[in-house]
């Protein structure tokens, strides 16, 4: 059993699902019985819906166990390691036999996530074993020029994965062309979209990919200092980054003549962001790094000309940097062969919402949204109907069911009114009220507005007020037009991306689900039955047996009725908790 490895997935998702306990249980057994296997940690594999995950690799093959709590851990140790009998029903993936979950991996192409879940992120040796820093070392050993590095990146066609989709190679070229002795390279790890966790998983799972990507970028543009701006809410990512940076320094990948490249002196530090969403905007991010209030400023000048401390600065997103070493090592074509004409390579998505298999997926650009949801994601929970998909977080938009064949690439997604964004993909079924959804996202953006520009600060607030009153059944005629008018004005009159895109969820929901707005306003009803104030729980007299259960369970005593008589819900007192609805054994309570 010497070669046997037991690897526990210890990303944030794993830990949240109890991976720590699983790990400790296995460790205790191993120590108690002096078992002869290697116990290791890794990070998220992407199958968040099956956490905690335990991977066993032995002479016979590869087995990924899903949903392994302490007791199941005991079971698989006993059965698999002692008795050499894998418990097939727990296996979610194996190279020996198919599983029900195989479809989750079909169609995925892992470039950015190539090492996630396959290495111990706190161990640089494992990363090196998986080719980490090889591309960087090649620059020194093969004497690759800065221009050539930029050319390769340009040729790969990679575009910024943070949401803007600006060609990375061009960004590097601008920064390269800016003449200055001091330049900076910044990794934007201020992932703030609700429901997005691509960057976190990457940083937790393969920090070296990001460090190497930054180092290559720094070499290309001529920067000597790198900053990773990471939100403080990602403690594990920060911890692993710190470990990785220290290890990289020890190995000489950072510091003087980094990676053996002569006169390439480069180091990186992590700057913790205080959690303002707007700090993901690059000029606000720079202000925040400088210790100022995170507020965007006008571009131009672009950071490539005047950025951090007014020096030329290149800013890329985590995923972008993670792709870079792969591209440099394997050539531009290895990346550009995936994807569509204008959107090359792969894209990581955080698949969440009402989808069965939520998690992280990396797919070639151009795959249809429908395939992502139904093939990788396994369809909709409870087999309900999909209604729409929100792409791009609060800055993005809703794509309705009938457009789900839209391929994921920058231009096709933009054409729907949504944006690719950083990769948040929230799936909604028929129970989601689209007005309420727009209200939810707008509530987020208006709270996260830095407060600088009039339209963003005040306009989103006023839009939110209109949306709120619509969802409360107080909408007025003309509210939709008022929303649209304000939305377009906000888009036209805002300084940064936050304001310019904040109305998108409202505009796309109005565009595709106008009837829902109209129902709220005209009929004072919520078709998806999502808006509480518009709902009414009522007793169906024919079905009520007078069992009194609902009256007893009602937390506010809003139900009247004597035993064996039809009950009655006093609407004024009802708090719409739904307790009666779920308790009634005779389906005698209806929601309307």
């Amino acid at each position, binding site marked *: 059993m010497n070669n046997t490895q037991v690897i526990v997935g210890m990303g944030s998702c794993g830990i949240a699902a109890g991976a720590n306990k699983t790990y400790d249980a296995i460790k205790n057994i191993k120590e108690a019985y002096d078992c002869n296997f290697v116990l290791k940690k890794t990070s998220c594999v992407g199958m968040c819906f099956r956490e905690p995950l335990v991977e066993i690799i032995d002479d016979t093959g590869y087995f990924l166990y899903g949903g392994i709590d302490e007791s199941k851990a005991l079971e698989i140790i006993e059965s698999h390691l002692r008795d050499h009998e894998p418990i097939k029903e727990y296996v979610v993936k194996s190279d020996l036999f198919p599983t029900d979950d195989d479809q989750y991996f079909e169609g995925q192409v892992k470039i950015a996530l190539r090492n996630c879940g396959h290495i111990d992120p706190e161990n640089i040796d494992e990363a090196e074993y998986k080719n980490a820093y090889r591309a960087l070392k090649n620059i020194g050993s093969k004497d690759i020029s800065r221009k050539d590095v930029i050319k390769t990146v340009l040729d790969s066609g990679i575009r910024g994965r943070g949401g803007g989709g600006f060609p990375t190679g061009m960004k590097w070229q601008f920064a390269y062309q800016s003449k200055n002795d001091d330049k900076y390279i910044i990794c934007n790890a201020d992932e703030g979209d609700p429901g997005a966790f691509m960057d976190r998983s990457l940083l937790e799972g393969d920090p070296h990919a990001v460090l190497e990507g930054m180092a290559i970028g720094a070499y290309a543009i001529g920067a000597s200092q790198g900053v990773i701006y990471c939100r403080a809410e990602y403690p594990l990512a920060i911890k692993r980054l710190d470990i990785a940076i220290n290890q990289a320094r020890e190995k000489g990948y950072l510091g003087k003549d980094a990676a053996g490249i002569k006169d390439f002196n480069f180091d990186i530090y992590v700057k913790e962001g205080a959690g303002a969403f707007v700090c993901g905007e690059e000029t606000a991010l720079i202000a925040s790094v400088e210790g100022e209030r995170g507020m965007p400023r006008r571009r131009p000048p672009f950071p490539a000309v005047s950025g951090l401390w007014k020096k030329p600065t290149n800013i890329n997103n985590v995923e972008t940097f993670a792709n870079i070493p792969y591209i440099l090592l394997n050539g531009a074509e290895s990346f550009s062969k995936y994807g569509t004409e204008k959107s090359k390579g792969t894209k990581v998505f955080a698949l969440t919402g009402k989808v069965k298999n939520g998690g992280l997926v990396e797919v070639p650009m151009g795959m249809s949204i429908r395939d992502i949801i139904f093939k990788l994601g396994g369809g909709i929970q409870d087999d309900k109907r999909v209604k729409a998909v929100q792409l791009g977080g609060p800055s993005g938009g809703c794509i309705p069911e009938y457009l789900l064949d839209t391929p994921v690439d920058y231009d096709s997604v933009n054409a729907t009114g949504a944006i690719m964004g950083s990769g948040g993909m929230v799936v909604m079924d028929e129970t989601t009220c689209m007005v309420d959804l727009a209200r939810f996202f707008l509530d987020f953006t208006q709270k996260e507005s830095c*407060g600088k520009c009039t339209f963003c600060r005040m306009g989103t607030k006023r839009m939110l007020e209109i949306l709120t009153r619509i969802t409360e059944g107080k909408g007025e005629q003309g509210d939709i037009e008022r929303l649209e008018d*304000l939305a377009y004005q906000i888009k036209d009159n805002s300084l940064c991306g936050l304001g*310019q895109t904040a109305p998108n969820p409202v505009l796309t929901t109005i565009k595709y689900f106008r009837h829902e707005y109209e129902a709220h306003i005209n009929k004072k009803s919520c078709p998806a039955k999502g808006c509480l104030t518009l709902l009414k729980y009522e007793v169906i007299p024919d079905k009520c047996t007078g069992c009194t259960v609902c009256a007893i369970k009602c937390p506010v005593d809003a139900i009247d009725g004597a035993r064996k008589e039809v009950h009655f819900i006093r609407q004024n007192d009802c708090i719409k908790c739904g307790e009666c609805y779920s308790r009634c054994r005779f389906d005698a309570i209806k929601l309307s």
Partner: protein
Amino acid sequence: MEKSLNIELDGKITKAYTGESILQLAKREGIEIPTLCNDPRLEPFSSCYVCVVEVEGMRGHQPSCSTKVAEGMKIVTDNDSIRKARKTALDLIMSNHYADCKAPCTETCPAGVDVQGYISLIDKGRYSDAVALIKETNPLPAICGRVCVRPCETACRRNLMDEGAPVGIDYMKRFASDYDLQSINKYVPEVLPSTGKKVAVIGAGPGGLSAAHFLQIQGHQVDIYEAAPKSGGWLRYGIPEYRLPNDILDAEVKNITDLGVNIFYNKSLGKNLSYKEIKAKYDSTILTIGSQKGSLIGCEGDDAQNVFSGIDFLKNMEMTGKTADFKGKTVAVVGGGNTAMDCCRTSIRCGAEKVYVIYRRTEKEMPANPIEIHESKLEGVEYLFLTNPKKVNKDANGVLKSVTVLKMKLGEPDASGRRRPMPIEGSEYDIELDYILAAIGQKTRVDFIDDINKYAEGGQLEVSRWGDIVADKKHLQTGIPGVFAAGDSVTGPATIIEAIAQAQTASRAAHQFVMGEELQEPKKEFLSKRDHFKPQVSTDYMGKYDKQIREEMPVMEAENRFNFEEVELGYASEEVCQHEAQRCMECGCVEVYDCDLKKYATEYEAEQEKFAGDYHQHQIDFRHPYIEIDNNKCILCARCVRICKEVVGANALGLVNRGFDTYVAPSMGDSLTETNCESCGLCISACPTGAITENFFFKPGPLKEEKAEVICNYCSVGCSINVNHHHELVMKTTGAGGLVNSDGNLCQMAKFGYRYMNDVNRITTPQLKQEDGSFKDISFDEAYDIIHKRISSVEADENLFMAGARLTNEEIYLVQKLARAAARTNNVGSFSYFNRGDFYAQSANNNVPFDQLKEASKVFLIGDDIFEKHPVIGYMIQNAHYIQHVKVEVINPKGSDKLSHKYGSLGDVGNFYYFFKAANHYLLSNGLENAMFLDGRVDDFEAYKTAVLAENFHDLVEKAGLCCPTLVGDFVKDYLNEINSILVFSEELLTAETAREVYNLSLISGKLGKTASGIISLKEKNNSQGIFDMGAQPNLATGGLAIGSQEAQDKMKAVWGVDAPVVVSDIKALIRGGKVKNAFIFGEDPVGTTFNNIEEGTCMDKMGFTVVQDYFMTETAQRANLILPASMPVETGGSYTNTQKYIQEFEASFKPKVEKTNPIQLIDLLAKFGLNGLSDLSDVSSEMIKFLPQAKEETKYQLVFTAEEGNASPFAFGSDYLMKRFDKEFTESFE
């Protein structure tokens, strides 16, 4: 820089500079783009989005303030889409602007009288100014002060605080107006030059009189035609004298006729006056005929004898001059309005036994003024509420016998909102009566309509179905072009103040008509209102204001009222009136006249309630003694935050929270006083609204202000400032954007140091000390005689003349001329440079121009006092540091870290003299001198070098008291490394010898005299440099020549015609030795500012006879034998020379509060000595200029070795009382 870019701006091809913004380009091209967040002093920010424009090829709108022009750019600055965006931005801002532009009193007043403004003037005892302000909108303040129905008081927010007791607005108006009427300097409006146009006004009632007033002062000739034999209309014939005495009415009418208005009496249109005649003589006509026809009760039998209409009754008494005889009679007045009150109270005064008021509703519904009801009850009137006459019963002769009345009850509200009275069946009863006065309304009588329409052209006069004249609402023009109508005859019976409001409209339109202009309404002003957000309650105002009991109107005792003497007696004293003025809560915004937000909201017709929703209510923060923060008015442009960071470097303000909840607050949420705030007030200057304002210690109005531009008289930087004043009452100061401070930045001294200008405790006449130590006023001639006699009676050199460094060049010149040409002595000097080395005479010669600070590579601050003593230079340095990244380092005095939050420090220095001497030693001993520079340009290098190197370096370092021994070397190396470095210091902190060594350093290192390199030496006082340049030193003649030189002597002889003295004495020794028999001290307070004890410091006690000239009774003045009053700079004019040697002139703008200004006094004194030829300031100026060098002479630099440190000044504050006074005020206000 060259304009190299081709831009298309609004379709026009233009050239632009590289790097400029669209906003800057548009401004240069004369296109106004509105902006709120842009401040030319600051980096563009782009938050308000009011300045948006369209740029071809760019998505959405672009903020023009931060969009830089680029080659080929096509820009549109105005179209529907842009205007919509700007309006929406303003709508959105206003939807969270919980604030009032104007106070409710003014807004409610039909005539829009500026109540808050005139109360602020009454508060200061400036009654005639208050009347002037009232008369801008209401020409009858004494009348209205008695009989106005006071909608202002109903709206007054004091009602909230003091449970229904509003500010006594009308009482105060009456007090101010009565005061003014009796004043010898009563307000007389300015009448504009004649336009040659004539306007006829028909009717001399309140509307007609007001219209005449408004039109006459515009330069038109107004003639009023009045049907009655006297003026006033309803004021005279309707309102009884006990409420409005005829002499008050006559006085106000006289004020109007004094303007040139004619009143022709007994002229009734349609009877003895035809419109034909009017039309021929006048360019326009205004009908203000009133509603004169009374109504009867309208029930059966109301034609009985002794049943009158109330107004006929009142009018008849006034016309005949006879009081009705009601002795022993019973009178009933029917009605509940103010006419009913006048009738019942008059009836009492006519001796009636019993007076009833019959009113069909209850007291609550009565339209009469509650005060009137109250007073009538006191006088014995009996009220029959819910009662209505049904039938008048007469005797056989048709004479009134009794009235049958019905009891009523109240039903549902009617159209007027009042509950409708309903008769109670069978409740009839009779009341025995002698007289009935019906006061239930009036009608307009248009009996001239046929006459007017007969001769009218272009249209016809029409009458509405209520019998009133038809006139369009906006201009009050009738159907006949050029014929306007105003007052009751248009509105039906209304109030005086409404008639005045109508007169405003009609006279504005008539003016436009006669001037051939289109009839136009003034653009509707945007007004933000708190009431748009929520009903106001008392707790909204707790905090800044306390409850304060209203000063009620004293009235005549009720038992004394059986006559027609005025019942209300008026406030008894100014104290009472001013105490009442204190109750005003100043609801209107002080920035109402200057607010950019209001300006643009008006221009773009913003709507405050369009986006009504959630809004913020902030407590107003007035914890800082000079700065008030009202976040309710903040628009988050962050100009205050940014100027505090970018210009001041204090970083005292910041933005807190995010999104809609963002607000500006002092750092850490503390009071501003707890932060690094320097109290400079630049945030106030940056605020485009009223969110950050001066925390006024007086009621600031707001009042419309004029600006008097002067040069600041505190420090030597020489900032141009505007003294903003209302009729010479100084309200505030603002930057004037002059030569030195072109950006308009002012420091705390200029900004808040203006209070002295309003101080009424001035010395205004010469005063002679009496034997008992008191002062007695004497005439100027007596004073001159005494001075002349004193000077003539001693040896020439026993006289001493001292000139303050705050005086103008002209004044200093005259003082030294008085010394040299009149007293024939060179004993002339200044306490501000008393006993200091002579280097300061030349230190300014090589100062780096201030605007080169931004081109420097590094600025060294010697000492830590620049931001206190010469803050504007501090701002220039900080701004260069922020924008151009000029490095700044401080050489701190030992133990100070005052500037550590702004700049790094090189280290602490115990003694600057030895430090710089050590630095020079280090330079020379290490051979680091700049030989190229020294060669040929600097004299005496070798001698200097020898002398310096003879000293022991280690001794120097030790005496310098350094924090670390390597400091000298580090500093020198650092200093030499910089290409353009500037050493900045204030002379107050360094002795002249220390300054000399700093100068030596910049010479040896070759840094002097190059662009953006060298020294900036800052003098203490506004005209410290003038002391030297004007020759107020024993050894210097005007123009800086040595006094003994032939050139100087020849010049003085040539200009003055006398032989000037040549002996130069040591002034200090003279004083110490008791040799001074006469001392003349102009504009200095050595006693009040000395660091030493008084005997040591000024030896004033050793002087013989002392003459002191000053504004106020300073400590020095108190010790004088003779005091001369001084005029202030803003009253005098003249010029100052700043520390850069810029001579800056300014005009006198205020009327002097003294009979003779300082230069005139000196000119008079010179004349006493036979030195004639000067008569005014310009003579002085032209004579003075004869002494000044005509061209800058190229001279070699001198290296002068100093052996000792020299003396610090024995006087603080440049020996100036004003500087000391401000410092004290400023310091104490924070305690």
